[in-house]
Each structure stands twice: as structure tokens, then as C-alpha cells.
């Protein structure tokens, strides 16, 4: 998919040799194509510029420490992005840590192990997971997952792991069910289909000859997987994970339902937290025009944009370097 989107230099010569001449309709068509292409850049540029311009007063007010200040107090109008940046990154990282092994397992099962009749239903099921709207994940998370975690997962973990020094700090607080860990788990489920789909693509692109040779010299399934398939596609796989991470960073509705929405810093995975997206969703409707709160929210949006941009740019670089190399 990336190869076709990126285009390859071999096609360029073909296009130039067939350059449309003489007709009126063709230049118009080509012009429209140019316009569509440029429009994307323009829209993206305008969004970035608008977010930055809108958030600039907040940055002026609080300085660069806005990025890490952990205060979010609408009463005293002291705003900082620290808690949300932390929450955004932590929940997305938890999601990737949980989704990664699952995706590996599913993708390898689908490409190597699953018998033909089973392959389709599982593939469709994975695609359906991607089609579920995030608000549905949020509601399901809130009404089903949160009570289950509060009743069966958190109390034993708090009891067993809580007293351990250092590590125990991750498992503190009342068993609310909602919190950073729950948000990470729901996010994991949401990014799973994307990562899996790309893994399947990568694994399918491994030349059969390589795998058969490995089997031929007596390698086990696991050894073929570890020594042939994964190394062959590893860079593209890292790219897939980064794309999943990018999606997890910006997810809003599902997270808002299950993260517990507390603008306080906490080391505990069970403690309620907030992400940039959830804070914007929560606070935006009541932020009045021209207020410092609205400006801070726009600045938060800009920060999220920058974080997502960095993650996506990294993933594109990794995927592209693999395809070209």
C-alpha cells in the first residue's frame, strides 16, 4: 500500500512521454488533479497555523513551561499541558505494549497457521474491530470493562503488588476501574486491527522461497517466524507500530469514557488521568471565546498535532527506508 501511495520513480518517464498535448480537457483535468493534491497541503497547513495562532496567547502567558507544567486550574486560570502530555504518551504506550504481541500472534496465525476456512472469518472479525465507532468502545469500556476491572483485576493486584517498594507505586489507589491502565487496554483493542492488518501485509510479502528454504533445513515454525519472517519485515513492522501509536495518541471518545479524567499527576496505573484529546473534549464546550482556557485548549491541540506528526513522520521514514532498501 505504501509503495503505491509513494509512487515509484520508474513511472515518471512513462507519464512524461505521454504528456497530454493539444486538447483542452486534459490540461483542465491535470489542473484539477494538481489542485486536489495541493489542497491537502493547504488544509493541513491552515489547521496547524490556526491551532498555533489560537494557542499563542497561552504560550505567551505561561511561557515554554506550559509544556510540562502540571497545573490545570480553570479557577485561577493556571494552565499547563504536563499531565495531559504524560497521560497521552503513557496510555498510547500501554496500548502498544498490549497490542503488539497480540497483533504478532494474530498476523502470524493468519498467514502461516490458520486453515483456509478459518482465515476469512478471523480476517473479517479483525476488520470489524476497526469498523466499530470509538464511542461504542467507550460505552462498552465504561459499562462492561470498567466494572470488571474494578471488581476482579484491581483489588488482587493492589493487594499483591501494592506493598512492593517502587513497583508497588504503579498499583495504588482505590479500585475505580477507570484509569490509565483501562484506557490503555481499550486503546490496545482499537489499534489492534490496524497493526495486525499491516503485519499480515508484511508477512505475506516474505518470499515463500526464503521460508521454504528454512523449513527445508529443519527449522521449526517458531524458528522460521523468528529468524526469517520477522527480520525480513521488521522495519515495516516498526512503522506499523508507529502508525498504531499515532492513532492511539489522538483517540478521544473511548478514552474520555474510561480514563477517569483527573488533571492530576499520578504514578499509579490505576489512578485516573487525562489525555490531551480527552481534556479538549471535556473542556471545549464551556470554554468561552477569547478566554485563556480556550487558548490553552488550542495550544494543547497544537501540541497533540506536533506529537502525532513526529510519530507519523518517524513511521513513514522507517517504512520507506525498508521499501527502498
Amino acid at each position, binding site marked *: 500500500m505504501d509503495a503505491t501511495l509513494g509512487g515509484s520513480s520508474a513511472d515518471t518517464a512513462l507519464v512524461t512521454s505521454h504528456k497530454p498535448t493539444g486538447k483542452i480537457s486534459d490540461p483542465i483535468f491535470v489542473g484539477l488533479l494538481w489542485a486536489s493534491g495541493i489542497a491537502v497541503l493547504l488544509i493541513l497547513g491552515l489547521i496547524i497555523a490556526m491551532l498555533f495562532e489560537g494557542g499563542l496567547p497561552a504560550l505567551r502567558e505561561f511561557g515554554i513551561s506550559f509544556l510540562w507544567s502540571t497545573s490545570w486550574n480553570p479557577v485561577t486560570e493556571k494552565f499547563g499541558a504536563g499531565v495531559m502530555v504524560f497521560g497521552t504518551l503513557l496510555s498510547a504506550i500501554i496500548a502498544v505494549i498490549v497490542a503488539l504481541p497480540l497483533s504478532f500472534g494474530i498476523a502470524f496465525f493468519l498467514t502461516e497457521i490458520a486453515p483456509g476456512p478459518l482465515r476469512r472469518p478471523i480476517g473479517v472479525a479483525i476488520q470489524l474491530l476497526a469498523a466499530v465507532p470509538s464511542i461504542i468502545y467507550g460505552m462498552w469500556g465504561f459499562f462492561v470493562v470498567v466494572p470488571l476491572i474494578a471488581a476482579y483485576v484491581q483489588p488482587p493486584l493492589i493487594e499483591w503488588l501494592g506493598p512492593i517498594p517502587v513497583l508497588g507505586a504503579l498499583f495504588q489507589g482505590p479500585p475505580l476501574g477507570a484509569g490509565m491502565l483501562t484506557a490503555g487496554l481499550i486503546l490496545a483493542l482499537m489499534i489492534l486491527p490496524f497493526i495486525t492488518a499491516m503485519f499480515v501485509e508484511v508477512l505475506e510479502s516474505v518470499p515463500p522461497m526464503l521460508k521454504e528454504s528454512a523449513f527445508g533445513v529443519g527449522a521449526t515454525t517458531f524458528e522460521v517466524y523468528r529468524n526469517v519472517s520477522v527480520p525480513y519485515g521488521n522495519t515495516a513492522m516498526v512503522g506499523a507500530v508507529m502508525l498504531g501509536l499515532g492513532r492511539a495518541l489522538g483517540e478521544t471518545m473511548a478514552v474520555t469514557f474510561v480514563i477517569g479524567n483527573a488533571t492530576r499527576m499520578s504514578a499509579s496505573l490505576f489512578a485516573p488521568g487525562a489525555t490531551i484529546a480527552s481534556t479538549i473534549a471535556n*473542556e471545549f464546550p464551556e470554554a468561552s*471565546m477569547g478566554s485563556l482556557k480556550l487558548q490553552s485548549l488550542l495550544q494543547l491541540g497544537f501540541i497533540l498535532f506536533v506529537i502525532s506528526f513526529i510519530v507519523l513522520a518517524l513511521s513513514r521514514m522507517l517504512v520507506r527506508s525498508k521499501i527502498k532498501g
Partner: protein
Amino acid sequence: MKFANILGAAAIAVGSLVSGGAFAADINGAGASFPAPVYQAWAAGYKAKSGTGMNYQSIGSGGGQNQIVNRTVDFGASDAPMADDKLASNNLLQFPTVIGSVVAIVNLEGIESGQLKLSGPVLAEIYQGKITKWNDPKIAELNKGVKLPELAIVPVYRSDSSGTSFVFTSYLAAASADWKSNVGAATSVQWPTGAGAKGNEGIAGTVKNTKGAIGFVEYVYAAANKLTTTDLINKAGKAVKPTEAAFMAAASAADWKNAKNFAASMIDTAGETAWPIVSATYILLPKNPSNAAQSAEAIKFFDWAYGKEGDEIAEKLHYIALPDSVVEDVRKAWKAEVKADGKAVWTN
């Protein structure tokens, strides 16, 4: 801050298209979500009677204020009253429509509605994380004879900024000087402890799922869903139950005569039977409407809503109607202050 305006305007434009707002006479309003059910019920009742429709977009109080400041709607709606200087600089008339109240809900085994009594200072300490167990002596003192478990209290609050949070935190600030100076009152605050949940539904769901949880919701919501509410000790030191009579007592105890822009506080009033967490919700109307006919239609709508039919609809939905004297003052304000070309747009 064009973005918010464009977004809101787009939402309203789409909304009015969807709801068949092709008729020019339809009234457009936007804002607070708390009174949205009664405004929508009024709209249906008024349409049946007069043929004029009213489209109300429940986009939050902040959004309502923004929309009316930009004049993209005929009226804005806000739970928290707008500041006097902001009203003046934007040439807006503010008036209340209905009264609502906030109640505390709990999840404690064996405790039913009305069995538990709490007070403002105790609630403030619970939400500050200073009282952490249900069998704390301060709670036990208010509840002699009630068996209280040694269970952690889990405070739950609104994660989305809302008028309900404003009313509740205003009450905590009135009841506790400590809360006032350390946390304050606003549509969203930096809650010292507990977990946030989205909307009344979110709070109710979290409280239901969490043993030992306490939360606050609008009475309208608690009544409709039969949630376990607590009694509160009011300023007069009397324990009161959250009933419509108690809310009305608070409304009549409020100092409407001296309130600027009708922003009379009904928080922690002195009445013996008054429920302490009561507040009105407001409408914002331009004093210098660009379209006088449209503005007159909006006023006609609210004039009807203040009448017998409107009151009945509000009552059915558990909202409290305004005291008659206040309604009369609002009508006077319409006549005196909403003018186009020097003439009142609405005359009764």
C-alpha cells in the same frame, strides 16, 4: 478565536436544516445542556399551539454565550449567569427560565434514599480527600443510628465542564472557606481527589459500579433514574430532603429584588426548609436585535413558556418554575430593554 464560532455556527446551521428550519419564523437558540430537555419540550408544545418552531442546540453554556455574543442565534442559554460587565459590553439582556437543583448520590450497601445525611462542610472535606472513610466521626455525628461501613469513599465528579459543576462547587465554596480558597467555584475545577465521569450518566454509572462512591447529579436526572440521594443539612441547620417543595423554598428565599441581571443566588439560602444547592438557568437575548421580528418571536416563546402550559411541561420534567414576582420583572425588562429603532420589540 474564529474557530469556535465557525464550528458552532456550522453546528447550528446543520441543526436548523435537519430540523426543517426552512421557515423563516423559526427561532434559533443554543447553549446549556441542563435545561435542554425542558426547552425542547416547550418547543414541541409551542409549535403545536402557535405553529412557530424553536430549534435548540444543546452545545454547553460556554458555547451558548459565544453564539449570542456573535449573534449567530436568536438567543443563547447559560447555566452560570454571565458577568455583568460582559453583559453590558455585548448589549445582552439576561433572564432566568427555570430552576434546577443538584443532589448528592451514593453507593453504600443497605443505604437507601434519604437515610444518609450530609452537610456542606462534610461534602467539601470528602471532595478534598480529607474525609476518606464512610465511618469517619464527622459523618457518623450527622447520622446517629445509621450503620456506616469502614469503606473508602470514592468521590466522583463531572469530567466535562458543566453548569452542574459550577452550581455544586459554588455550594462547596459557600459552605467551606477552605474549599473557596484552595479549589474555588467554576464550570470545571482542579478536583483535589476522586475520578471524573462524563455527564450525569457517567457519574450515575460510575457511582453505581463503585462501592463507597459518592457523586452529584442534577435532581432532574436523579429523579428520573431513581438514584440513591442523600439529605443535606441546610444553612438553618435543618436536614432537608431533595423535594420540589424544598427547591421552591430556596427560590423564594433568594434575594431577587437586589440581584443584578436576575443573577440571584439560591445557593445555601437561609430558609428553614430550603434545599441548599439550587440555581436558575439563564437566557441571553440581544438588547439591540438586528432582526426585531425574530427577537419578538423569541420573547413570545418565553412568555408562553412562563405561562400555565409551560409550567406544566416543566413540572412534568421535574424542573421548578420561577416565582411569579420574578416572571413579572422579566416581562418588564423585556419591554423596557429589548428595543429596535428605539421601540420595544415586544409589547404584551
